[in-house]
């Protein structure tokens, strides 16, 4: 469904992605793991159209995403819960969620999805009128995911949803990711927490300094010696 082929992205002269190729099929959870600074966030921002690759292609089915301006990428079914959450601090929880559906016009569908998000994250419903900036870190993460779901995306990009959360909240977030996927949303999950990510993903890619160095199904990656050493903390 989503396919990156030999994508190169630069920040000025810094060559951040050095030919990334990966694909995500319909219905999958695919994880992209790698240490800090490897290029995970850059990959997601490039898919989203916030960064333009210098070469390579990004395709959603037959559509060439990398040729679209960023605001059109969302309308094609790509939504993201970004690194740092990026919620709107002076908008209410409800307004934040409504902004998630910005590119949509089907009022009934939007209302349904709002109920669905409140079903997944009852906490958000309790805080519906509260300003986004006053939420706790965990609540902000829920809001960022909820906002992305409000786009009813074909593929949901998640950038380190576990970052900075307590173990209980991490479990909750990962359970929710599985639930969202079971309801039919395809997921590309970026994580430093490789253990958790591989435990719920179907397949995985390992990224290191801008290059994919390994790919396999999740179970095999968990057993891979290099992965165990570098990312799972197994000696």
């Amino acid at each position, binding site marked *: 469904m989503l396919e990156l082929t030999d994508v190169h992205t630069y920040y000025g002269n810094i060559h951040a992605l050095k030919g990334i190729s990966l694909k995500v099929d319909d219905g999958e959870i695919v994880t992209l793991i790698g240490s800090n600074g490897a290029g995970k966030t850059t990959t997601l921002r490039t898919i*989203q*159209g*916030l960064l333009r690759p210098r070469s390579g292609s990004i395709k959603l089915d037959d559509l060439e995403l990398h040729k679209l*301006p*960023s*605001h*059109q*990428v*969302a*309308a094609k079914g790509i*939504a*993201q819960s*970004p690194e740092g*959450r*990026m*919620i*709107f*601090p*002076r*908008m209410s929880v409800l*307004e934040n969620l*409504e*902004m*998630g559906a*910005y*590119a949509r016009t089907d009022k009934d569908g939007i209302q349904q999805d709002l109920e669905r998000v409140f079903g997944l994250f009852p906490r958000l419903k309790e805080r519906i009128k509260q*300003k*986004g*900036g*006053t939420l706790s870190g965990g609540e*902000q993460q829920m809001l960022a995911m909820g*906002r992305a779901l409000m*786009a009813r995306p074909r593929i949901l990009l998640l950038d380190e949803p576990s970052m900075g959360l307590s173990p209980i909240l991490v479990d909750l977030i990962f359970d929710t990711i599985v639930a969202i996927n079971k309801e039919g949303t395809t997921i590309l999950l970026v994580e430093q927490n490789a253990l958790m990510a591989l435990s719920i993903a179907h397949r995985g890619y390992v990224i290191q300094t801008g290059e994919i160095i390994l790919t396999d199904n999740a179970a095999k990656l968990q057993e891979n010696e290099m992965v165990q050493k570098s990312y799972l903390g197994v000696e």
Partner: protein
Amino acid sequence: MGKASKLNIRRIVIAALVLYIVLLLGPIAGFDIPNIAAAIQANPLQLVQFLIIGLANGAIIAIIGLGYTMVYGIIELVNFAHGDVYMIGVFTSLTVLSLTGTLDTDSPGKIILGLILALVIAIAVGAGLNATVERVAYRRLRNSSRLAALISAIGVSFILENTGLIWAAQSWLVPSFGTTGGASQKVFPDLLGKIMAAYGLDVNLLANTGIALRFTIKDLMVMVLAGAMMLALRLFVQNTKMGKAMRATAQNRDAAKMLGIDIDWVISTTFLIGGGLAGAAGLMAGLYNNTAWWFMGFRAGLQSFTAAVLGGIGNITGAMLGGILIGLLASFSDGYLNARWTNAWVFATLVLILLFRPSGLLGEQVGEKA
């Protein structure tokens, strides 16, 4: 010693300096408390009079201030050319009124029609000009240092001021510009007074009430129009899809892009609205103060920018509040102190707010950027 306490000491020293200068120069500037107290005692009603003048001027300042605050809120640029867009609004209105014969007619119906047309065209020209300035002078610099955009804005300001200077010399457009060249102040005819006179009424709505105050049709016009525009803007920003997109873009531009918001279009719209408001303020101020001058955008810009900062830059309600407060400050300074020093007081206010409460009266203290 912590960074914060060092900063505080510096602030206190600068504030003490400002205070010292104010006390030193105060008497020259007319800051003489017994004298002022005596003046108020002698004529307490005058206080109310200055209040009315301050509110009306404040309303105009607030409308111009909205343009500063909206633009700053969304791209963190102090649009130095904004006051000059307002000045162009004054000249546009005057020119439309002249070309349509509105300045020469005595028929109140024709004058009202001419004014409506002038309002529409001043709004359109202000909006178009401001959005063009953004497109030409700011957009390419959006990812450069803030200083670059600021310098570009000052350049645009010079261009517009010189345009005003040339415009004010074109007496074939507006005969009353005369032959004295563009540099002198021009008259903006008192059309509202003319309308009232045509109906045998006084400009002063309190003329035959026995109250020794002036509350003119002009005061009323400015307050009503300003109030209506602010209300409309608030509703727009709170409730419409574009208004929400503007707030989202202001709060987190990348997140806005991710959600499918075309931020170029949102920023253009912000400049369109701010410019349209400045254009409208141009006509209102022309009718209110009855002058047109190529350099009038400077004082208006200083006061409006200060109003926006005082209220909390980026905050629409704040710009309204700040506008009214600065209007009152200017009016009381003009009335009780010394009009020549009014700009200095406004500037001192700006410096003090920037030092002690840069977020302004209604600005967010925390959670500005999540």
